[in-house]
């Protein structure tokens, strides 16, 4: 009886939209049929059209690049910071919680902040690069696809480091001190103890952090919208933002759903891997 509200909730707000999304993707829902209500079943036409355009492949490659680079950097930086905070020193707690702020503020705010910092005319990043003589003229960060993608990744890494850090830190705290002491007797100290003790003991947590990072990064949407809106010329779209553009800008909800459903499939594959790593949770 206690489960009824949740059951209904899942059916109404997850089950039905998912079913609806699948059914949308097989109909020619566009700006005309949305109004007159004459959307017909068109089979796989939306999938074929949506997944054969040149923009979708750009978005797909962008999504891969954005995801892989973000995750590796978030993880490496997060792990280094976690290792640092795993040591004892004054103000540890205060500083550790301050680092969480980037993760807690709305992503659209982070996007706005980085948009301003990387502004071509008066962004502080250009200012610093000019002062250090790394560049001789201001860089138009957000006007070129390659550099715009870099800014998107930097923003996302900034947001993700705290999350990685907290999870890895709690994993490090769970490793019993005795294991390090025993390893030290066997001659494993410093860097060697990191590779022979720390990493093997963090294996499960590392798997979880990487998979969650992957799934969350596939969802990223706010960062694209607040930095480039997919531009210039759709060159910085991710699958999520491209699905949005198809549906809500081009009013082609059929194709938008076809892209979104592809994204769901990709997420589910990694969700399966995540669940397999984290098998205990469901018991």
């Amino acid at each position: 009886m206690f489960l009824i509200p949740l059951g209904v909730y899942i059916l109404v707000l997850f089950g039905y939209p998912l079913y609806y999304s699948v059914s949308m993707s097989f109909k020619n829902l566009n700006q005309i049929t949305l109004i007159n209500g004459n959307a017909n079943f068109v089979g796989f036409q939306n999938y074929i059209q949506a997944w054969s355009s040149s923009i979708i492949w750009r978005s797909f490659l962008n999504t891969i690049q954005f995801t892989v680079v973000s995750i590796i950097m978030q993880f490496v930086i997060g792990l280094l910071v976690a290792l640092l905070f795993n040591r004892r020193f004054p103000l540890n707690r205060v500083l550790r919680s301050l680092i969480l702020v980037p993760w807690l503020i709305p992503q659209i705010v982070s996007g706005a902040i980085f948009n301003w910092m990387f502004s071509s005319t008066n962004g502080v990043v250009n200012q610093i690069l000019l002062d250090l003589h790394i560049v001789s003229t201001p860089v138009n960060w957000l006007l070129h696809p390659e550099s715009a993608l870099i800014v998107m990744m930097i923003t996302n890494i900034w947001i993700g480091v705290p999350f990685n850090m907290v999870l890895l830190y709690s994993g490090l705290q769970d490793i019993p001190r005795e294991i390090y002491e025993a390893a030290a007797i066997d001659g494993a100290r410093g860097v060697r103890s990191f590779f022979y003790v720390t990493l093997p003991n963090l294996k499960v947590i590392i798997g979880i952090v990487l998979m969650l990072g992957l799934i969350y990064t596939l969802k990223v949407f706010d960062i694209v919208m607040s930095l480039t809106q997919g531009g210039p010329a759709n060159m910085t779209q991710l699958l999520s933002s491209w699905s949005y553009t198809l549906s809500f800008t081009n009013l082609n909800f059929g194709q938008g759903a076809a892209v979104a459903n592809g994204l769901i499939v990709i997420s589910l594959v990694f969700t399966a891997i995540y669940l397999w790593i984290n098998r205990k949770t469901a018991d």
Partner: protein
Amino acid sequence: MEGKVTKTVYLSLAIIVCAFMLFPLYWTIVSSLKNNTQLFAFPQTFFPPTPQWNVYSQAFGSQWPHLVVSLVVSLGTVVLSLLISLPAAYALAQFKLKITVVFVLILLIVQMIPSISLANALFLIFHNLHLLNSYQGLILADSTYAVPFDVLILRAFIESIPRELIEAGFVDGAGNWLALIRIVTPISKSAIITAALFSFLFAWGDFLYALTVTTTNSIQPITLSIYQYIGSHSTEWNSLMATAVLASIPAGLLLIFTQRYINAGISTSGIK
């Protein structure tokens, strides 16, 4: 164990890391306090030469309706999510049924679904149900972030309550509802606060649903207002940055007053 020198080295490193991570926020505040000439001066100063505090009263004056919308939607999301999650979490923790595993698995999976995939469908569904541009619609949409998380975190906590404690409630003749209200809820206070906090932050930070399930300006959360600010290509970066600061205040307050709950929340979201 570690010497004073090593500790100082660690502390300095940690301060550098923090400075690096917090610089964008520092820069946001500095920029908000500059006037237009100072914003576009070259070279830029790293502190506001003549702090323009009135920008905050102006930003608040123009943004307060959006802040109110965000507050109402976020609080609504907290209430709705807890009402659904708490009884469900109690049942999933208390009764070992086959269906428990199925529910937990479904929750873990739906948590991973990209929101844009739901948003496409929700827009048309809400359109048919006349839920676009309404508080109810936004609260329902935003609760999809919170409900799976809340159930999982509350269940993990309730499971850790000794069974005898809950069963003691039954001796007095109380049913499951009374046991939930009288015994489980007070004990789970910290987990409930964590769940509420995260639900609030999820809804407060939501931009995707704010963008998709509203079509007019009648109900506009602060995140949407910021987005339109960026889109308008205005050069009033100081007021935009002031608005960014205003939108970040809840996160800051929650962090200061409830830091231990937030740490618990992040840890639980990854591993039980």
